[in-house]
């Protein structure tokens, strides 16, 4: 399943990673399903609730923040489609730790940053048997919806 993200939302995801640098930044992807693809229309940047010192290479969104995100989505007629997070100074490939903590059917959009600048984002989906991630192409579109 393709994930479609508007250029503007992708820019916001990159800006969120740059603001969090050198720590990891994360948040939820809100959107809707439309004709065999999932379209991200909004992001919710959330606090990285990891303890001090760990935030440079780990992120954790609290259950309360997640619930709040799901409520926000429902109020706007959207659903939580996945999660975005940054890998400061590391490639945008999912780690073993990402795999261990992954939820099924969620898109994981990972942004790599080098020296504080976002380079690129890739989207990943957990395999049904939890054996690994499969990459899903990101379709970037310009239009306003």
């Amino acid at each position, binding site marked *: 399943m393709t994930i479609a993200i508007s250029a503007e939302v992708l820019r916001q995801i990159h800006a969120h990673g740059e603001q969090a640098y050198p720590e990891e930044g994360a948040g939820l992807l809100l959107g809707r399903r439309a004709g065999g693809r999932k379209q991200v229309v909004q992001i919710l940047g959330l606090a990285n609730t990891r303890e001090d010192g760990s935030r440079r290479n*780990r992120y954790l*969104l609290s259950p309360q923040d997640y619930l709040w995100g799901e409520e926000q989505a429902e109020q706007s007629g959207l659903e939580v489609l996945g999660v975005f997070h940054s890998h400061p100074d590391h490639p945008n*490939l999912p780690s*073993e730790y990402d795999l261990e903590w992954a939820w099924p*059917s969620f898109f994981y959009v990972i942004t790599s940053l*080098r020296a504080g600048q976002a380079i690129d984002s890739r989207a990943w989906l957990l395999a049904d048997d939890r054996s690994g991630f499969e990459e899903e192409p990101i379709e970037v579109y310009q239009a306003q919806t």
Partner: protein
Amino acid sequence: MPNIKIPSPLRYYTGGQAEAEVQGETVAAALDDFIARFPDLRQHLFNGKGELRPFVNLFLNSEDVRHLQGLDTPLQPGDRLMIVPSVAGGLDRVDHSALRTNQAFIILLGLLAFILNSPWLAAFVALAMAVGTVLGAPAFGFVYRRALRPLGLVKPDVLADNPEPHRFAQGFGSVVLFAGAGAIGWALVWLVIALAALNLFAGFCAGCAVYYWLGRLRVPGFSRTPPEGRLPGMRPRPRPSDGR
């Protein structure tokens, strides 16, 4: 009957359903009934030992059941049990102090084997490295974990890094050392000593570089890529508060 609220990522398995009525007088029984209806959910909610995965939170009427009686918490008809995700992830981490302790031991024991002219000692080091590779840990890392770190002699140096290339490097070193201890001779033992020293003193892991090069050639099983802006095999840049 109690009700279970299903979070977005699991609705794929419930045909889009956001709530389900379940039977059971405890949280555990309610979950059993829930999974009996949607069996594909089991692997995502429970680990291989049948324990709830750490990222699965259960809230009973907005109270975390971990603060109640856990899975034994009783349920009343009309109770609302919510499955709430902890969303987490991030980079893998490697404690480079454990790696450096390992390299120091490989160098010292390798030199000792040469001085004593004892291929058996070299073979023992190779065996320890092979065991470490299988267990996914540095062979002599236990000295660091059990003694050097608890005594405060060596501080942790936890960096965002891929564990796999280091594991490969140790396995590679083990094979070369076995060959050296066997028929081929001391030159190979010296090669392992030299590469361990290169890693210990210059921060360059030759085995890791080989791993990343194989990855670049798209050899299956070599999927990790080096940290951004670093040459393959070079230690990631230290950042003062990494993982501490």
